[in-house]
């Protein structure tokens, strides 16, 4: 066994040392790091590994390779607190973020930490929200679902792949709110471990509708197992052929899971602008467009000051609906 252990050890250390040759580029940051606030696999890990580590190196935006570190805990809270308390001046660090980050900040899941405690760099893709039903469902339009919410909420149970009060739940409630439903708690939402499992509840007919992200439903949609009632985007999305937006159906709700980065609050403006332009360059590259589409993400970009304002606005909205829902005080 010892021989095997040695082998494993040498294999593992080999990976750690596998640092491609360092180029002599000037002014580019070297020894950069992207922190994924969750384990391998999933949105934040993807954001670090593909647009950051893979493409920033490929497009020569950074010097050498970027290290990806996974730090899971408290739905991203552990990483957030780690950045604020111990890495506040680290100019070589960026952190993956998404709509879930904003949701949790709004709901005070990260304790007393606020949006001000970090610097919002930029977003480079959006997974728009969708509401889907089984192919055999009697519900044909968003109006049908809203009618069910009002007349027979017991037959209009919705499911999703994140916790009660989480972003998937909130997206569905934004629609209900736009429809004028006052008592949001009359709508039952049941969370499952992931979007895939939640969708089986809709396909089996146990639940009325699924609320989640576009990338989660594309497979089931192509297989003809589910129908999209509404996409929560401004414009129809080509990949979701023919699906109507909520806006087209008279419900002014736009919501999606954006993929973005933040940086520590204590870094210099130079370093901040460096990261903003790096994310901008990735977002504008054809390589990213191809990978983005492959992963079911729609086009969405927002950088620097604009993005900062965008995040704050979203936190405000989520905080408001969370209060109405009773998730937060």
């Amino acid at each position: 066994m010892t021989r095997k252990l040695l082998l494993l050890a040498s294999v593992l250390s080999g990976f750690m040392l596998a640092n491609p040759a360092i180029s002599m580029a000037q002014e580019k940051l070297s020894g950069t790091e992207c922190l994924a606030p969750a384990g391998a696999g999933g949105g934040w890990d993807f954001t670090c590994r593909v647009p950051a580590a893979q493409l920033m190196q490929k497009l020569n935006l950074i010097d050498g390779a970027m290290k990806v570190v996974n730090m899971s805990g408290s739905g991203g809270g552990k990483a957030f607190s780690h950045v604020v308390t111990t890495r506040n001046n680290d100019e070589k660090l960026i952190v993956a973020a998404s709509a879930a980050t904003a949701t949790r900040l709004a709901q005070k899941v990260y304790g007393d930490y606020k949006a001000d405690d970090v610097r919002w760099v930029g977003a480079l893709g959006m997974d728009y929200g969708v509401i889907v039903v089984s192919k055999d469902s009697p519900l044909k339009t968003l109006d049908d679902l809203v009618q069910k919410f009002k007349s027979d909420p017991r037959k209009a149970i919705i499911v999703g792949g994140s916790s009660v009060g989480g972003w998937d739940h909130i997206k569905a409630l934004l629609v209900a709110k736009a429809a004028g439903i006052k008592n949001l708690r009359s709508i039952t939402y049941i969370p499952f471990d992931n979007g895939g499992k939640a969708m089986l509840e809709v396909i089996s007919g146990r639940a009325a509708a699924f609320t989640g992200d576009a990338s989660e439903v594309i497979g089931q949609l192509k297989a003809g197992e589910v129908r999209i009632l509404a996409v929560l985007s401004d414009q129809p999305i080509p990949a979701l052929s023919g699906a109507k937006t909520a806006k087209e159906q008279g419900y002014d709700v736009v919501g999606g899971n954006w993929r973005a980065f933040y940086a520590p609050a204590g870094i210099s403006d130079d370093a901040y602008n460096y990261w903003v332009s790096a994310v901008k360059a990735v977002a504008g590259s054809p390589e990213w467009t191809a990978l983005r589409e492959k992963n079911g993400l729609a086009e969405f970009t927002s950088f620097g000051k604009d993005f900062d304002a965008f995040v704050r606005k979203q936190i405000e909205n989520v905080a408001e609906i969370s209060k109405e829902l009773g998730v937060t005080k």
Partner: protein
Amino acid sequence: MFDQLLHGFSIALSTQNIFLVFTGAFLGTVIGMLPGIGPINAIAILFPIVLQFELTPSSALIFFAGIFYGSQYGNSISSILLNVPGTSSAAVTCIDGHPLARQGRAGPALAMSAIASFSGGVLSIFLLILFAPYLSKLAIDFGPAEYFVLMVCAFTALTSFSHGSFIKALFSAILGLAIATIGIDELSFGGMRRFTFGVEELGDGIDFIVVVIGVFAIGELFLYLSELSSDTVQKIAPLNKVMMSFKELKESFAGILRSCITGFLVGVLPGAGATIASFLAYSTEKKMAGASGKFGKGDLRGVAAPESANNSSAVGSFIPLLVLGVPGSETTAVMLAALITLGVTPGPTMLTDQPDMFWGVAASMFIGNLVLIILNLPMVKLLAKILLIPRWVLMPLIAILSIVGVYVLNGSEFDLLLMLIFGVIGFIMRKTGFPLAPLILGLVLGGLIEVNFRRALTYSYGDFSTFFESPISIGLWIITLLSLVAPLFFKVLKKGRTQG
């Protein structure tokens, strides 16, 4: 179908894929042997390499699958030899595997584990190929109510601990259930923090692995230290024959078959898992054997059942992944996430989008299992010699591996502290004769039983009849009742026979 399988082999037999199967299976065995580092970590660690080499999704999955079932072979080795399971599903293998090793029968136990793993693995690949599309329907039909009843059924595995003190086993299981309630409650508004006592780190709950390693490995270490000072170190009998007798193999074979089917069916369900499969298979075999077995004291059939079941459950868990695009276990969830990053759209269309994947992976599993049995059987003799290493060398090594394994999990020092606390609990349990396996059963079932109970009652708006509605639920209730009544019935029958 035969054509498709041949096509699958043509994919699996490419030089690159053979290399991947071999490496995956080998790495998996090693990783499975090490406490703490499981297939989930291994896949996460190796994923960047897969990206680097730009593997196709099929090749990546062949590699990951190799790691997964390879680790199911490896995890029994440390269970048998050291009473230290690498994963929660291998905790069942300890029950009979380690007593066997202490009796000088480490060789037959290891060989049986390899043979049962191989048989369970290969048979379940046939089941995968033949029934995948039909069984995926089962995964859809299983709702929260059915899962709840299945968990209740799995709980009856507790009764197979009646030989010691049933009350003690029950207490262990309740402790496990209690630990499972710690953490943020995802089903309540605002995510209520339960039993976290203001400790931020407890919000995410306690990782299974931390408990398993703490209770088994660190507990064993404490026990060794305490025996060292009192000079009563338990003697391990000298090594006997390496192979089991043909008679013993024959005796186990029916059990391997039954366990394979149980494990496979449980594996297909995206909300159950290998630990439940192992416990169910073990308790079934124990009940079938009745008084004829030495279950709990070192019975080869007690090694064969969980090993066959956890391998076939690993294969079964590929059905929801490949046919529905829904991950059934944490391990397959990591695999799916990796596939998504490689550009695969999750869902039923994976079968048509990636035509090579299903058959390529299925064929590679045959090759992988063959590689594993060839690798594992000759190693039995060598591995059994680990027992000859003085314990004062072995125990510190286990301690180091445990600490590294637990730290790698989440990179959290707090987990190390928890591991020590559970080490103390494990030590006390050993000293006072509380069985450890029921603790793991309670821990694994706890979260699932509660969350499915609440989901089912949310669907039904509090109506309990929901648990008796579907034919699946009713069938599972009947099995539950039978497994409770059958042992009593057998006892009465035997008494009648000896008296008459």
